């Protein structure tokens, strides 16, 4: 704000001085030129007061006429000069001011100033999202759906303009600037007391790295979540303690590997990391046998590694010959879009196909050609651009990998519920049958719509009523999912995990009769409305007491005292 003020002042210096001089000359002249009275006799000139009054209304083209008396011809001569002088002075000022407002640099100062002010005036906790391409947009939309505030920094001007047109519930401050500059991050609220974390989601690894390190140095307490598509960058980020590093390609390969050995575990992971409100995709059961992989870039390399680790026979189709090929791996040279190449790679006998080049049209072409040769093929498709979604949906592959969606899911899950990471680790440690039973429970409760996942800590902040009750009485876990009425109606929420107050003891899918203690942390999956009801339940002592005792508790102090006497 102050910088805008100073720019205006500096630019207006010359016109204002010109205006002051013109006024001074005009007023001075009028006080010197002799006038004439009503009888045509010479009269003394106007005084300063009248001269200033006259020039003021003449210069602004209001023109009341010749006040207080009709002017002499000498005065009229001087006034004619004054009129032209003052018009020039005003025009010069106004033109300078207009030019200033048209000035590109000035406008950008205005925009930046407004952005910084909006960020400064945020009074709710918010996240700083750097990079609003496909991934960032997905994350922003989800944050908005969950009523979490966020600030966007994006390098491309047109993306920021598109963001303004998006129908967000809250007002989203967005700035077109290079997030690598620490100053930009600071302006976007890196040091803001309400900033919860930074999401580095640009499609440039180096920029993400710069954001992560700036955050680490300038505000070490913040959670940083960074996207890294290059293993080198990921290692670099890990070296200075970035909290979550997401490599979508590694993550997908990991999923695929997990899906090969434990399809229900991956299903359960999908249940809790999906974007709330979306449809649950069908279950993935990649078959064992020979696989054909097209492409050998960032995406295919980890996939091939993962398949090979599961002792599957893999044929890789690459445009150029690969160097280092171990025996179970076979290499066919070609693009994969032609039937001959696919035939040579043995698609007819294979059970699975991975179309993993960085070109969406080629991937679809590969999949369609291969499916024609072998209709039972399990097809894994890589979708590079979200805008091609309709094509991929129409094709209907068993497994479609969308990098931006993986990053969005993962970052949302991590950011919203830090407990989730422990839950996921816990789930991976169990066997597939256990996961199958859990999936069945999830499906019975939520159908095929993905639930929200949230965590609650039993303390004075998040559950004051329950904490107060626990200090002199016990309660079971089932109380946290009770409806407000005494009939045994339950909230549409499922406890996923209970972490004891010692932070070590942990139980997955805890039973309803587990005792609760102060300091316990709970992870729930459920509908948004259940979450709101639960928050009320845990913080409203009267409702909680009613549910625990079955008696309406007196609310006010007088009735409480009165009630004690009756007891």
């Amino acid at each position: 704000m102050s910088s805008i003020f100073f720019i205006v002042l500096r630019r207006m210096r010359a016109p204002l001085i010109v205006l002051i001089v013109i006024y001074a000359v005009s007023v001075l002249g009028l006080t010197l030129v002799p006038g004439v009275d009503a009888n045509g006799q010479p009269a003394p000139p106007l005084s300063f007061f009248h001269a200033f009054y006259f020039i003021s209304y003449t210069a602004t083209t209001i023109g009341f006429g010749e006040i207080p008396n009709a002017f002499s011809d000498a005065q009229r001569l001087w006034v004619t000069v004054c009129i032209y002088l003052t018009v020039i002075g005003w025009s010069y000022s106004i033109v300078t001011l207009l030019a200033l407002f048209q000035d590109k640099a000035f406008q950008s100062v205005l925009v930046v100033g407004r952005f910084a002010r909006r960020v400064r005036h945020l009074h709710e906790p918010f996240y700083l999202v750097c990079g609003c391409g496909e991934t960032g947009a997905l994350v922003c939309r989800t944050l908005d759906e969950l009523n979490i505030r966020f600030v966007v920094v994006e390098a491309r001007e047109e993306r920021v303009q598109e963001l303004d047109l998006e129908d967000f519930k809250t007002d989203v401050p967005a700035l077109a600037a290079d997030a690598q500059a620490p100053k930009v991050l600071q302006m976007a609220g890196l040091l803001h007391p309400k900033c919860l974390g930074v999401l580095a989601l640009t499609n440039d690894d180096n920029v993400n790295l710069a954001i992560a390190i700036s955050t680490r140095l300038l505000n070490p307490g913040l959670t940083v979540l960074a996207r890294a598509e290059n293993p080198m960058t990921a290692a670099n980020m890990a070296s200075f303690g970035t909290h979550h590093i997401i490599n979508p390609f590694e993550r997908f390969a990991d999923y695929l590997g997990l899906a090969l050995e434990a399809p229900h575990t991956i299903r359960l992971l999908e249940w809790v990391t999906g974007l709330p409100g979306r449809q649950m995709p069908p279950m993935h059961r990649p078959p064992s046998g020979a696989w054909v992989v097209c492409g050998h870039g960032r995406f295919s390399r980890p996939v091939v590694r993962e398949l090979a680790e599961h002792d599957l026979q893999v044929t890789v189709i690459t445009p150029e010959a690969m160097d280092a090929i171990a025996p179970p791996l076979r290499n066919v040279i070609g693009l994969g879009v032609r039937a001959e190449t696919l035939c040579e790679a043995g698609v007819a006998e294979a059970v699975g196909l991975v179309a993993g080049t960085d070109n969406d049209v080629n991937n679809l072409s590969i999949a369609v050609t291969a499916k024609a040769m072998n209709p039972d093929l399990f097809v894994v498709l890589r979708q590079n651009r979200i805008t091609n979604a309709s094509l991929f949906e129409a094709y209907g592959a068993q497994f479609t990998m969308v990098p931006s969606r993986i990053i969005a899911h993962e970052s949302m899950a991590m950011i919203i519920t830090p407990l989730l990471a422990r839950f996921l680790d816990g789930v991976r440690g169990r066997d597939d049958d256990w996961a199958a039973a859990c999936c069945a429970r999830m499906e019975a409760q939520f159908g095929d719509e993905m639930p929200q996942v949230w965590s609650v800590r039993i303390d004075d902040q998040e559950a004051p009523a329950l904490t107060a009750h626990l200090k002199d009485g016990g309660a079971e876990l089932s109380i946290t999912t009770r409806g407000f009425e005494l009939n045994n109606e339950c909230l549409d929420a499922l406890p996923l995990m209970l972490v004891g107050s010692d932070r070590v003891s942990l139980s997955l899918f805890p039973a309803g009769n587990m005792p609760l203690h102060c300091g316990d942390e709970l992870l729930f999956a459920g509908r948004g409305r259940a979450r709101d009801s639960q928050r009320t339940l845990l913080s409203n002592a009267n409702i909680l007491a009613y549910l625990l005792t079955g008696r309406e508790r007196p609310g006010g102090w007088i009735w409480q005292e009165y009630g004690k006497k009756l007891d």
Partner: protein
Amino acid sequence: MNLEKVVFAFFILLAATLNFGFFIGDIADPVLHNVYELFAAIVVSLIATVLKFGDRTQIGAIHLATSLVADLQLIAAAITWAVAVHVTGVGMTAHVTSSVVSLSGGALFANIVSVVILIIETVMLRR
């Protein structure tokens, strides 16, 4: 030599000297205080104010503040004069004259501060 500095110092000094010229003399005697000199002091003081616009330094801010004080006092003096001569018609009595001159005296003080700051700045920067 920097032309900007010359112009700047010129206007600040001129504002102070004109102000001083108007102020000097028996405070109640209208003959010793020319209204044209007051007019010149106001105009030069306004120009000096505008010249100080846009300087973001601490000293620049104090410069601007002192100038605004001087403007305020001089304009108050001019309004007092206009009211006495044209509105109420009492004319330049000893009472009115002393009010106008003492207001300009206040402005003179602000202008002197301006000059002192100018000197301090010059000495400090040693350029």
